[in-house]
């Protein structure tokens, strides 16, 4: 199948570049024809699509923003944010007293209290604090950049572990069939019927009552997400391997007496790679979404830790929702952009890997 694809593509290229046939005479064919490997074909198709390029650019921008950005920020020391400890804007609190004086007039008196907070909290947007400061005097723009570090990397960790588990178990199930296949697939059936968000909620409350409320809670939850998330990948790998192992090149591999592990890792897995890469890219977006959802429901990292999910938690609070849009709109935009970018790239990769796509 793979070989056919190459031949087809090469002949297509030949047809493209050798249109005036008479010019060919007396020249070396290799000068006129560019031979493209399948990988190059995929890359060519990928880079030709505008949306996938847009996604790639967005991803690079987000990564630069969160990994290089904090270096230039005065409010971050390496990976930790720094509090702005200059006294902030005075907070006015007004109390009203209504009373009726001796002559029966209603009088309302006001008591005004001015307190000056020790940290520069709830600062307005300024050149010093591009997005203002949060309720503890941390710079929101710096937090946003630092938040990307955790939110973007956590997805990679989860998806890589999920893929490793999925490939191993799905590969075993597809290759050996029989009771191995039955066992693995029944486990996959069960874990794919478990409602993810409710499970996350239950576990998160469990961790909270075990007094695990800092960033570790998020890490544990992501661990659980990995444990129940590999089913899709296992199913995909198994399906592919089931159809691949019946093909002639596998018979050839068997005849040449290759070892089982070599047959699986050298001959079967590379053929599954395209689908695997696409589903990994798409999966990255959904993990970022899950982290953000947990954060919004106040079940992931706590408010104040720099992750996008924790920052968007502010939107669950009516005061912040209406009064401080600078708390939650920027992380929301970042999350949306990241998911959008992963989807664009994944979509582009799927089209690029598809040999039937001619555009």
């Amino acid at each position, binding site marked *: 199948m793979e070989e056919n694809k190459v031949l087809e593509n090469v002949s297509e290229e030949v047809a493209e570049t050798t249109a005036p046939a008479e010019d060919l005479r007396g020249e070396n064919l290799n000068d006129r024809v560019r031979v493209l490997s399948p990988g190059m074909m995929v890359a060519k198709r990928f880079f030709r699509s505008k949306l996938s390029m847009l996604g790639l650019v967005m991803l690079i921008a987000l990564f630069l923003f969160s990994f290089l950005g904090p270096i230039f920020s005065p409010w971050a020391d390496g990976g930790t944010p720094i509090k702005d400890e200059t006294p902030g804007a005075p907070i006015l609190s007004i109390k009203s007293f209504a009373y009726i004086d001796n002559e029966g007039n209603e009088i309302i008196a006001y008591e005004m209290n001015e307190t000056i907070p020790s940290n520069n909290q709830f600062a307005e947007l300024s050149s010093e604090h591009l997005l203002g400061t949060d309720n503890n005097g941390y710079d929101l723009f710096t937090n946003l950049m630092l938040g990307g570090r955790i939110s973007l990397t956590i997805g990679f960790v989860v998806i890589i572990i999920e893929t490793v588990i999925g490939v191993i178990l799905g590969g075993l199930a597809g290759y050996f069939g029989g009771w191995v296949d039955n066992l693995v697939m029944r486990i996959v*059936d069960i874990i794919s*019927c478990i409602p993810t968000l409710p499970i996350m909620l*239950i576990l998160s409350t*469990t961790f909270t009552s075990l007094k695990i409320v800092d960033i570790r809670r998020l890490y544990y939850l992501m661990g659980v997400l990995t444990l129940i998330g590999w089913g899709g990948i296992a199913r995909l790998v198994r399906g592919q391997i089931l159809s691949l192992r019946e093909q002639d090149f596998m018979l050839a591999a068997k005849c040449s007496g290759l070892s089982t592990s070599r047959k699986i890792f050298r001959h079967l897995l590379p053929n599954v790679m395209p689908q695997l890469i696409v589903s990994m890219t798409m999966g990255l977006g959904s993990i970022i979404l899950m982290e953000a959802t947990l954060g*919004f429901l106040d079940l992931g990292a706590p408010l104040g830790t720099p992750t996008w999910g924790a920052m968007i938690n502010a939107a669950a609070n009516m005061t912040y929702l209406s009064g401080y849009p600078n708390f939650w709109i920027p992380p929301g935009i970042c*999350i949306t952009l990241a998911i959008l970018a992963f989807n664009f790239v994944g979509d582009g990769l799927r089209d690029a890997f598809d040999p039937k796509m001619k555009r």
Partner: protein
Amino acid sequence: MVKYVIKRLLLSIFILLGVSIILYALVRIMPVDFLRDKAVAIVGSSGADPDELYERLCEAYGLTDKTFVGLCKGYWGWLTNFVQGDFGDSWKYNQPVSEAIFKNMPISFGISFVSLILQLLIAIPLGIKCACNQYGKLDYFATVLTMIGISFPTFFLGSLLIKFFAIDLGWFEIGGLISSLPKDTSIFTKIVNVAWHLVLPMFLLTVLSIGAWLRYTRTNTLEVLNADYIRTARAKGLSENSVIYKHVFRNTLIPLVTLLAGTLPSLFSGAMITETIFDIPGIGNMAYQAMLVGDIPFIMTYNMFIAVLTVIGILLTDIMYAVVDPRVKLGE
């Protein structure tokens, strides 16, 4: 076919058993003690020892034994009750779980159902239009829109809607289903008021799920457009309208029916995040509240309910697949 369905049903029972074991284990190791809080609340200021009452409550609910054997016994007890249709009493809502769920399900179902109809009404014509002008302006626009719809987190779009349309502009009411109206309000005003509350949540649900339908319709239509019978239809001189609206449209619907059968069960489970944001008393929101306090009977029933719906959804999809396409033979 009948044999296949029976086989699948047996398998489903096995799957549900597996899910229930995992769920029960998780819920039981959950150290959130609703009962302790309840005991403290009941004892209140009377000065009695809440621990004593707590022990009694635990015993009443069969939760004293935290060893493995105890867990197994508890699971068996729960399972026998569950199979007999006795879901227990919700601790948080102080009523039988089945009652609490079925009383609030119509709200969740109504919202999801109207939103699904809206999605189909917009997505199918638009999807066909896009496919007919592939790589056209509308197609590009719809693709980007779809992607945005798929990528936008529910809570973020929901928060934006609340912030701009409900708080800043004040166009819509939010929070619950109905505002506090005077007693003598006519039914018509009440209905309008409820509808006004539901505009934003329905908009949110529709926008976020329309992408998947749009995409599916588009891909299908493209496939149908390349089919031989469409070429035949064109060759015999039918007008383009007749080709699209009679031949293409009907054949596009076939796979959509399959997908629709798969989504039907999920209409009943409630949209947890949307309901929570807009504070709509649907079952999604109820389950969220119950999970935060550790209301074991409600959590177990709700999650099993979702698992059952998922299993039914998958089964329905497979069966519909064979029903609409006679070439598919099930069970081979």
